[in-house]
């Protein structure tokens, strides 16, 4: 049986929890063999492969994994604080270059103090530095230098999550109101 080009790298990256980005040559190969890889990951690991127009990643049913929760908390806080400063956070996350010191300043002055201090990945500058390293390895951010980074298209996963979360909450509120 012939395997697609970059097969080993594709499987390795996805199993490492990386987002495969459209800028990567592997992405085309993955997209061209979407059916094969969809079945491969489902049958072998019981993971679901999600291929979007500009990135692909693996999903599992495991809900206790802490990293994705921490990423959600981090991006959620960032969006909230940017909005508080009157910025269009979607534009910022999509296009702007972030500075680790700026992130520190936003989180250190956030009103979500308890949440931040109780999170081992976000509690202080040193922890955040490590955390950004993890995000970089997973292709969620792209480090331009030691302190500067931009978000990759993978950020959309988290925005979709927030949007669906809001829809779920709003639907729940409406159901409650209807039943009253």
């Amino acid at each position: 049986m012939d395997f697609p080009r970059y097969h080993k790298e594709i499987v390795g990256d996805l199993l490492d929890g990386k987002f495969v980005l459209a800028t990567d040559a592997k992405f085309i190969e993955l997209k061209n063999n979407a059916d094969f890889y969809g079945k491969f990951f489902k049958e072998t690991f019981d993971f679901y492969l999600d291929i979007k127009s500009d990135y692909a990643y693996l999903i599992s049913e495991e809900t206790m994994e802490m990293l994705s929760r921490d990423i959600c908390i981090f991006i959620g806080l960032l969006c909230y604080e940017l909005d508080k400063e009157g910025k269009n956070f979607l534009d910022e996350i999509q296009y702007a270059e972030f500075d680790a010191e700026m992130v520190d300043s936003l989180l250190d002055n956030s009103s979500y103090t308890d949440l931040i201090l109780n999170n081992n990945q976000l509690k202080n500058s040193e922890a955040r530095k490590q955390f950004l390293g993890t995000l970089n390895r997973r292709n969620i951010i792209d480090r331009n230098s030691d302190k500067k980074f931009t978000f990759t298209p993978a950020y959309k996963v988290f925005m979709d999550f927030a949007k669906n979360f809001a829809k779920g909450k709003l639907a729940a509120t409406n159901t409650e109101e209807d039943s009253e």
Partner: protein
Amino acid sequence: MRTEPRTILNFLSNYFDIIKELFDVQLKDGLVRREDLNAILAEHDSDILNKLIEYKFFKKIADDFEIRPMYFKFLEFILSEFKPLLPETIEKYEHSVTSLFKKIKEGINKDRNILLQRISDLNNEVRDFTEAVEKNTLRLIAETKELKSNVDKIDYREKVRKASFWIDYYITPLNTILDVSNSDSITNRLLDISQYINVRRLNFDDEMARQQFEKLYVFLVQTNDDLLRQSKILTNELLPLIERIRSESMILTGWIEFLKNPNKSETPFIPKSIRAYPYNNAMYFNSLEYVQQYMQNDDVYLEDPNLSASDKWIFNKEFYREQLMKELPMTNFFEWAGITLRSEYEDIETEKFFSLSTLLFEDDIELEFDPTADRQVIRTSDMNLRVPKIKIKRHGLS
């Protein structure tokens, strides 16, 4: 007496700051209340009310004032600040245009002057319609960009409320009015009219009417282009922009709800890192080598040393301290320790040697040693210790 037009324009120019504030008030409230007027005039330390009435800028309504429509439209135009018209107000043009067109068709072979008047009226109605659409589009662009830039830093809930308001009441209905694919839209009605006029401008008997049809046709073609442009702005720019604001606020709502209790909320995806633990191909031989070490076991017998508590050596610190004090001053502490232990035991045990070394930390002695001097080797039962030569004397005595 009629006022010179130049005088009025000079007046508007000289007092433009006040005029602009009055315009803003009327744009917002629909009229200028007496108290608002007084406040503005007091702020500018100016009393121009009589002139405003004399130049017919203001119309008095009970105790309040209204900027006359001519001035208001003029200011709207030069400031590019238009009060948006509700789409249903714009839609009224469809009725007037349709009605006039119907009358033109019905009376095409009747009174010539009435026909010319109707063509002219249709021209005016279409012009008013396109102007109303253009004003609304300009205003909607300004409103949307203001929302997007959010200079006033308004709350995201307010932002989404405003975005929804503009979409639901203005942008979507206006888009429907202009939508070419919608057969009932005014744009399509105007296309029908222009097709009819196109034929008449070429074959109508009366020269004057033909010229009027020609003029109307050219105007309709131009209008059609304008409306398509407006429709494009709405479809390509405003709707995505304002949808983005709505979407952005939806995302923020999601984050705020999630952050209320992130640990109890399910994060729906996991880019989980999977570790693989494959076996090395030399595993069999490595395991065999390891296991073979235990294949043949020699019997090992351990003798009970039968030690009792009294056999265990206990460091009698006081005894050795006295011994040391008797010998002071001494030139080599470790040599003394070695000699002392060897006089009592066959071998110098390391533990005993170290115990004696603790005497160096007694309070009433003074230590002195040369760090550059050669070290001396003391052999204990299980190691060779390289130690410095330490001189000791009693504290305070030479």
